[in-house]
């Protein structure tokens, strides 16, 4: 089947996918704060209220626990809600419904009920929004059995993954990022359904593996290009799915390259990288020529002042430096 590609933004890809799914299945509806009349606080749902009406695009009061739980109940009866929470930070208000209810109902009630729910929100900091508005806590959700957690890094992935999430019968946490909404990329036309639970080698290489996800992928690929100029061939793995985690793809890459650096936006201790590192340590032990390194955020409530914020957040320069350190520790240039 030949597909044409268009270059659109991540935001457009999400908007188009929501539209397509609303059209395809009348059980699909959107629910969240300011998604209708306001067209969405980040304009992801722009135009949808006008075209589909208030029954399919539901504006809610400020009540995350209430409307997330409502979406769960609706899903129990067979509807397919797509919940928008304004940012990851506010999902904490609803965490009991997400973790204790959505994630557990299918198992706890003897597989008699499904919860075909999508909860989407952007994580990330860097816009001087200060500590409570800048968090990357996706690892909390990645830790919970019964949830699926997806993190698309390009517009094409956003489209394919959101489609897959909506059609999946389990509760899916869909992690977006404020810094990704405006990025552009080629998106194939027609139905695209991603495979959940698989990572991808986005740039093949032979000398070192960088593992990243979501916004971090932009930096990782950029840095890999720089190193290409310097004669270093870096393989970049996009996790794509935080739960389930594709351990085999990660380990296969490191078995090939013998060096690994993880680039993550979340904080260092107990973060996503900790899991990747442990996985590599066990699954690719005999192939490591240097310890696995992580480049992650400093463990502080993120400050407002720009220089402090920049210092705390992991940057391309940090990644470059750690890659160099890893290469040097194996005397790569000899």
């Amino acid at each position, binding site marked *: 089947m030949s597909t044409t590609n268009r270059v659109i933004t991540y935001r457009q890809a999400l908007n188009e996918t929501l539209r397509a799914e609303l059209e395809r299945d009348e059980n699909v509806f959107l629910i969240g704060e300011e998604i209708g009349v306001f067209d969405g606080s980040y304009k992801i749902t722009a135009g949808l209220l006008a075209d589909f009406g208030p029954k399919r695009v539901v504006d809610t009061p400020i009540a995350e626990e209430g409307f997330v739980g409502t979406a769960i109940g609706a899903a129990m009866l067979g509807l397919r809600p797509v919940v928008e929470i304004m940012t990851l930070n506010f999902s904490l208000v609803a965490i009991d419904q997400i973790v204790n209810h959505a994630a557990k109902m299918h198992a706890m009630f003897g597989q008699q009920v499904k919860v075909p729910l999508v909860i989407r929100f952007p994580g990330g900091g860097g816009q001087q929004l200060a500590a409570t508005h800048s968090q990357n806590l996706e690892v909390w959700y990645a830790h919970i059995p019964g949830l699926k957690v997806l993190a698309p890094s390009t517009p094409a992935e956003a489209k394919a993954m959101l489609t897959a999430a909506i059609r999946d019968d389990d509760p899916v946490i869909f992690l977006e990022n404020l810094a990704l909404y405006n990025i552009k990329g080629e998106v194939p036309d027609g139905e695209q359904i991603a495979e959940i639970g698989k990572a991808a080698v986005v740039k093949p290489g032979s000398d070192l593996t960088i593992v990243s996800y979501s916004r971090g992928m932009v930096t990782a690929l950029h840095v890999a290009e720089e190193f290409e100029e310097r004669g270093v061939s870096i393989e970049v793995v996009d996790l794509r799915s935080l739960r389930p985690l594709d351990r085999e793809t990660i380990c296969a890459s490191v078995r090939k390259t013998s060096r690994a650096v993880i680039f993550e936006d979340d904080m260092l201790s107990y973060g996503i990288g900790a899991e990747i590192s442990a996985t590599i340590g066990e699954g690719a032990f005999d192939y490591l020529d240097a310890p696995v390194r992580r480049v992650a955020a400093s463990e502080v409530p993120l400050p407002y002042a720009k220089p402090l914020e920049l210092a705390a957040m992991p940057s391309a320069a940090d990644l470059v430096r750690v890659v160099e350190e890893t290469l040097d520790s*194996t005397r790569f240039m000899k």
Partner: protein
Amino acid sequence: MAEVTMPRLSDTMEEGELTQWLKQVGDPVGKGDVLALIETDKATMDLESFESGVLEKQLVAEGTVVPIGQAVAIIGDGSSIGTEPEPVVESESIAEDAPDAPESPPGEKLDSAEGEKTESKLEPAAPESTTVETSSGADKLRMSPLARKLARDNNIDVSAVKGTGPQGRIIRADIDAAVEAKGPARNTTATVTAPGAEPESDSGKGIDPGADSTSGSETVPLNRIRKVTARRLSESQAVPHFFLTNVVDVERLLALRAEVNRGLAGRGMKVSLNDFIIKAIATALRQHPDVNVSWNDDSILRHRRINVGVAVATDAGLLVPVVADADSKTLSEIGAQVVELAGKARDGTLSLDQMSGGTFSVSNLGMFGIDEFTAMINPPEAGILAVGAASPMLMLREGKPVEVSQMKITMTVDHRALDGATAAAFLRDVKGILEEPLQILV
């Protein structure tokens, strides 16, 4: 007849103490009546009867601690009152004042329990076993897992390998070197991976070095350096070049060098001719910022810093470490740094940082007696200076023949980034600085 057992009264309870009998032997009991009080880990609970009838036997004394499920009483129709008590299951018991109820024999039990305790003393700790049974001193060896695996696969004795990784860690490169030193033909079964060879989908099958021995030539696998050099030089071929040559009168330069070295001798340092050349290039680049550039496909990048690459020949191949900010370093600093970089280049311990960021390079084959040559550009730099040997030449000065030391310098230029006039002006100034070398000091 029904047994009343110690009930499980909380999710954490494992045993309970029957603190007080509320019904005595012979009392009628209705379903739901409280027979006794039970002290658990959390609270004092009621022991309810699930049967009705008559309490025929109390099987434990007040104050007895009883595990869950053990019988504590018998409820029946009343006919079995006064018969022998059922034997009590082993338990720790504390004897208090016994009421009418038959007493379990706590005294004996306690003794035997104690006796058991004294008998089952811990064995003296076994002598500590050696933890790691590797070759002698191996627990002090630091090795990357990959190095360990390759050593195993290639039968390398790691105690003989010197680790060149951080803190003396043995890394893959060290094993690769040991394997190469052993000689390629001996390993038939193990997979030999030459250092730096591109690994394929499984972990690195290298080229089998013994393959061509029948034809009389030996295939030498490429190390990383040669591979990269080869690739870059091929790229360099694609660059449109032109060349400019100049002859430099180095009399004053040689004299100045001698004088400078006399001064530095006290500090145990010296500078070479090449150090002067590096400095001269840096100085000239400061005066010609449009030569300190790189071609960037659709634009020209003008570099703020002046980083001069210095070609160093090593056994492994050609390396070009970089003297950063050469324009602001003194001659002696440049000299010291070049010595250090060359040493590291030969040892193979150059860091990636030391190899990158160059904006112009210099290659000197004078020590090999080469008069002149053209060097290949080191992309993405825009120029490279090839320096030949200083030789005595016969010149005419004011009509009289004199011996003058001269040196040929040839500049290769990327025509996309620089045109002839710009390059020529630069080269003229380099010559000028070398011929009036005191300028270097200002």
